[in-house]
């Protein structure tokens, strides 16, 4: 039984504050001009992981379900997208669609099993199922084992727009990213999202109100898998390869850390967290300091000292100051 009330989530108001609206517009504007100064590939990588973490947060932050197996959707979709581009030679939007479709199917299969257990068992089941998928990817011929799928071109979007130019690709990514985050925000604030949060707060009461809790959880799991798949597909399109790294359990751990560090249960949290973790990884890669150790240490510090995450802590301070 998961005691969700102990989860330090951040309550969100349904209607966005005026300040928030302005902030969002400023951020979108920044997204449009940033590639003038920052290397676009890095920004696109950040967007992939920010979307991945947001998808994960949809499940943990709003559904209260900790999945340790999201790498399966991310990496599974990356493989499907890469395979569609390389072998079927379809246009990139169809390839991404194939990736998302694969993630949805995988999410449905894993979700059906996982929602049968709760709390920590849910986490262990998702981890084990994702590991099973990892072994499948290790042995299946179409993934090409240790080599992965590589050596394909990005193709032309809708058969028209050439994506080999990274500036063009950047704006495609930006549109998809903003639309996806908006979609997640809409889901969270829809009646469905409200019921999901009610289940997180008090599952027994939701059951007694007549909601079929397992179906709502499964729905959240599949949606989250779909968005994680979108992120994985975009990553495969960006780097033009799909490898075992994307389905490895380390990837599932990284996405948890991004969400935890940024703030569980807020829209901005996972984006901030993903930005920090990716930047940290990029920085450490140049110093030779072991990345895994740094991530582990960050995990420990987050869990022990600030469970609200950066965005959550910021909001908490703000709220405390508002009502003395």
């Amino acid at each position, binding site marked *: *039984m998961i*005691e969700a009330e102990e989860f330090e989530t951040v309550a969100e108001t349904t209607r966005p504050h005026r300040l928030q609206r302005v902030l969002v517009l400023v951020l979108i504007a920044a997204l449009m001009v940033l590639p003038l100064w920052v290397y676009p590939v890095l920004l696109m990588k950040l967007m992939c992981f920010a979307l991945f973490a947001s998808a994960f947060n949809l499940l943990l932050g709003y559904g209260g379900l900790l999945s340790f197996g999201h790498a399966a959707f991310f990496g599974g979709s990356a493989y499907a997208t890469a395979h569609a581009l390389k072998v079927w030679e379809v246009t990139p939007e169809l390839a991404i669609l194939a990736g998302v479709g694969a993630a949805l199917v995988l999410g449905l299969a894993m979700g059906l099993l996982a929602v049968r257990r709760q709390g920590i068992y849910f986490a262990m089941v998702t981890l084990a199922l994702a590991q099973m998928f990892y072994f499948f990817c290790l042995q299946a011929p179409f993934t090409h084992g240790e080599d992965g799928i590589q050596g394909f071109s990005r193709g032309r979007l809708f058969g028209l727009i050439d994506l080999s130019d990274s500036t063009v690709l950047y704006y495609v990514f930006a549109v998809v990213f903003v639309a996806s985050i908006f979609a997640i925000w809409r889901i969270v604030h829809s009646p469905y999202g409200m019921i999901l949060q009610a289940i997180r707060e008090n599952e027994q009461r939701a059951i007694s109100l007549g909601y079929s809790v397992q179906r709502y959880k499964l729905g959240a799991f599949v949606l989250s898998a779909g968005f994680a798949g979108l992120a994985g597909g975009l990553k495969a399109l960006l780097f033009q390869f799909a490898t075992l790294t994307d389905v490895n359990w380390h990837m599932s751990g990284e996405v948890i850390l991004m969400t935890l560090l940024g703030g569980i249960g807020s829209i901005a949290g996972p984006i901030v967290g993903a930005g920090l973790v990716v930047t940290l990884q990029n920085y450490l890669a140049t110093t030779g300091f*072991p990345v895994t*150790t740094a991530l*582990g240490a960050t*995990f*420990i510090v987050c*869990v022990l000292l600030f469970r609200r995450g950066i965005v959550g802590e910021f909001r908490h301070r703000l709220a405390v100051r508002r009502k003395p």
Partner: protein
Amino acid sequence: MTMIFGVPLVVLTGQLLIGLINGSFYALLSLGLAVIFGLLRVVNFAHGAFYMLGAFTAWMLGQYLGLGYWGALVLAPVIVGLVGALVERTMLRRLYDLDHLYGLLFTFGLALLLEGLFQHFFGSSGKPFSAPAEMKGILRTDFVTVPIYRGWVVVASLVVCFGTWALIEKTKIGSYLRAATEDSTLVQAFGVNVPLLLTLTYAFGCALAGIAGVLAAPIFQVSPTMGSNMIIIIFAVVVVGGMGSILGAIATGYLLGIVEGLTKVFYPEAANIVIFVIMAAVLMVRPAGLFGKEY
């Protein structure tokens, strides 16, 4: 040559034995996980890392202090237990009042930290660790061929598993532990030092993982990633067996090890996923696990 289901008997018993050895590790590790979870309500993700730490400590004791296998078998689990106690005293204890998921996340971070450190200082390649000289031989009979060391692993793990069971079920300190599992506040009111009991339990669980690590060192190579590969399988074992019962954890460990060994004979491609498939099947038929009480 005797054949069973078209497979030579020696091959079959050989794989059965390998299964039994893997099962020994599964049993030892899921037992430790169950003991810790029973009292602390923490799923110790770092259990695999402590298993790795046990193997590495044994290797380092041999490498730097010239200590032999038997010395390491005694000393390494003690050291691992002390590390566990330190972790519990300084950090883990702050998380007891929170959602159980935080305990899982904390120990996950700890596992990453340890794995990363060992990878940094000792590299990813495995370190060889040899079995004691008196156990180098092979025992041959008509129907089975056993390297003596592997036989020893099975015997040792059985002894440790049932020793632990007896400690918890038959002794006074075990009765404190069982009582604290039921209601720790009440037990504390009777004057039992529950915080100390929690520390000891975590240390003991970690030491069990350390024993498994030393036993495993001569069979598998000592490498930083040996723990993370193991812990995911152990989680599947624990989902199948449920963490509610000590004997259940032991039995499921051996059982799944043997099933895995047999799968290697009849359908080798599926050998490394068979435990996960069984887990999925159990979830469909009996979601609470074979011996499970749902928490």
